């Protein structure tokens, strides 16, 4: 269940609801931003901008359009991609490698949530290359099915089901 009550209170400009939602969603949003930018400092800046936008534009969210998490994701991915296009960021990251979330998780030595961390490390190890790429493009980079199918040379009709199988493994491991 998503916290509809908190979201409603946020839309009434309730500061406490904003804090609670920040606690619920900030780390995952921070992770999405970081998986695009691969830069802690830049990610911090973008995360702040994202949550200021959340406060300012919360009226534009409607559960009819989709999940609150999805709404946050869109704001975060767009803000992160905007950042990669900015001059200061380009100069700094001249040799932008084709890294993605897997590299970050694999290179990380401390996790804030130990139980999840063990599961996710295990998940990354058992995850096939194709799964990693599908999740990276669709979830972290915000690609459409068509864009992902072209990028990965996978038939459009199979993207949905393949992605589901990839995520089912993650869910199994997290439940264990």
């Amino acid at each position: 269940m998503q916290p509809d009550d908190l979201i409603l209170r946020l839309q009434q400009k309730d500061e406490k609801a904003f804090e609670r939602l920040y606690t619920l969603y900030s780390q995952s949003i921070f992770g999405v931003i970081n998986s695009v930018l691969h830069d802690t400092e830049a990610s911090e800046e973008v995360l702040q901008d994202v949550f200021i936008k959340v406060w300012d534009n919360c009226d534009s969210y409607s559960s009819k359009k989709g999940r609150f998490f999805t709404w946050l994701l869109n704001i975060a991915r767009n803000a992160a991609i905007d950042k990669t296009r900015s001059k200061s960021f380009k100069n700094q990251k001249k040799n932008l490698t084709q890294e993605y979330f897997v590299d970050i998780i694999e290179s990380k030595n401390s996790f804030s949530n130990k139980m999840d961390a063990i599961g996710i490390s295990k998940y990354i190890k058992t995850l096939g290359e194709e799964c990693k790429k599908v999740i990276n493009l669709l979830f972290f980079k915000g690609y459409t099915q068509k864009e992902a199918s072209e990028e990965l040379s996978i038939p459009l009709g199979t993207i949905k089901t393949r992605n589901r199988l990839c995520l089912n493994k993650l869910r199994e491991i997290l439940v264990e």
Partner: protein
Amino acid sequence: MNIQEYINSGILELYVYGALSPQESEEVSKVLKQYPEVETEVSEIEEALKSLASAAAPYNPEQMLAAIKAKLISHGGIVQMHPTPINKRARIISFISVAASLIFLVGIFVLLNRTNNLRQELRVVEAKNAIMQTKVDDSENSLNQAKTILAVIRDPKVTKVPLAGQQVAPDAYVNVFWDKENNKAYIDALGLPEPPQGMVYQVWSLKLDPLTPTSMGLLEDFSNNENKVFSFDNPNESQAFGITLEPAGGSETPTMDQLYTLGVVTNNA
């Protein structure tokens, strides 16, 4: 719709990613509200993705919240805060006004009700008053009549002529009080029986030699006259008075075999 097939199609994962078109997303949102198992599936997908993404975060950014709030305040986002006390106050005020209106309405209703009751009571009292007034008027009337009768009886100038019962009604009796000065005659007919339906008593002034009857009038509305005292003008030189029973409306000449009472004026007055 086969819900399990729908879930297995992988559309819900794309929904959470935001990879569907706006129209497709709205459709999934509707299905989600309709089917709890779809909502559960979406929540689980979301939780898994949140865990995965959190793992890619450099650290838990909890301490950044203070900086974000500071920025919100500096750009004016959080100026109009404290909605809760305002709401509470507004709620109390609106509660008070609602309560006041209710009390007011109840008050008006009670007052209207009371006014109606009073109006009805007033109507009843007025009706009673009218009845009382009629009774008072009646009593006054009968008192005046009694006074008049008494005055007539006591008046020494008034001649009392007793009429005795005749053959058809031996027990009947009538007194005539004749005020010669004012040419008035009062007939006290208490001693006459009720006249039969369609009949009426007729009073006659008689001259004896030769016997000449002159009609003085009818004892109209006999049963409704409580005192049974009737007044007539009598300018005649009466020597006797007689009362006969006649058909309604009276007769030209007395029907002698229906003579109820008869009495002669004595000349000592």
